[in-house]
C-alpha cells in the first residue's frame, strides 16, 4: 500500500544539537509535501510545505526541509534545536490522485533536553 514513512518515532536530544527527521513516501507522480508540528497541548500547525520550485524549503522557527524527488524523500532539519522545539512532528503528502486527501506519517516524538 502507498504510504508515508517516518522512522525513529522517539528522538531525544540536547539543546543546540542538530535535528534531522526523515520522511519517505511511496506515491508516484507530482506530490505536495508538508511538515506539521504539534506542540504539547496544542493543535497541529503547519511548519513548512513544498509544492514546486526550489527543493530546499524554509519554514518557521528555523526549520527547513529538502525535497529529493529521486529518493522520494522530504527530510526535515534544524541546525540547532531549543527546548521549545519539543513536540511531535508529522510529515504529510498530498498524492497526485488523492483529491486533497492528506496522508500522514506516524510522527516523530521529539524531546529536547535543556
Amino acid at each position: 500500500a502507498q504510504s508515508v514513512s517516518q522512522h525513529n518515532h522517539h528522538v531525544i536530544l540536547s539543546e543546540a544539537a542538530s535535528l534531522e527527521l526523515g520522511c519517505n513516501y511511496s506515491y508516484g507522480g507530482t506530490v505536495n509535501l508538508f511538515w506539521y508540528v504539534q506542540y504539547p497541548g496544542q493543535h497541529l500547525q503547519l511548519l513548512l510545505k513544498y509544492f514546486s520550485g526550489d527543493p530546499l524549503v524554509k519554514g518557521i522557527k528555523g526549520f527547513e526541509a529538502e525535497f529529493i524527488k529521486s529518493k522520494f524523500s522530504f527530510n526535515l532539519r534544524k541546525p540547532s534545536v531549543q527546548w521549545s522545539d519539543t513536540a511531535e512532528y508529522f510529515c504529510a503528502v498530498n498524492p497526485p490522485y488523492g483529491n486533497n486527501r492528506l496522508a500522514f506519517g506516524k510522527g516523530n516524538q521529539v524531546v529536547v533536553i535543556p
Partner: protein
Amino acid sequence: EAGVVQSPRYKIIEKKQPVAFWCNPISGHNTLYWYRQNLGQGPELLIRYENEEAVDDSQLPKDRFSAERLKGVDSTLKIQPAELGDSAVYLCASSLESVGNTEAFFGQGTRLTVV
C-alpha cells in the same frame, strides 16, 4: 482570526452509547475534513466535504459513523453505537480550496475514550 473550533475537547462514554462531535471551520473555508488519530499514529482521513457535499467518504465506517455539514459551514460527526476501538482523537480541519496545494488548518481535536 479564529481558528478551527471543535467541541467538546474531551468525551468519555460507555461502549454502545452514541456520541457526537462538532466542528466550526475557519470562516470562508469551503473544504472541511474529519480525521481520526489513534495513539502513536498519524491522522487518518475519515471524510472530506466541499461545501455541503461529502466528496470523499471512502474511509468512513458507514455502519456506525455518520457526518453532516448542513449549509456548508459547521459539521458534526456521529458514532452510534461506539465501540472500544473508537477511542482516539477526532480532528477537524478546514482549507480555503480543495486543491492539493492548499494548507489545511486543524482544530485542537476531541479526545474520545470509550470504556
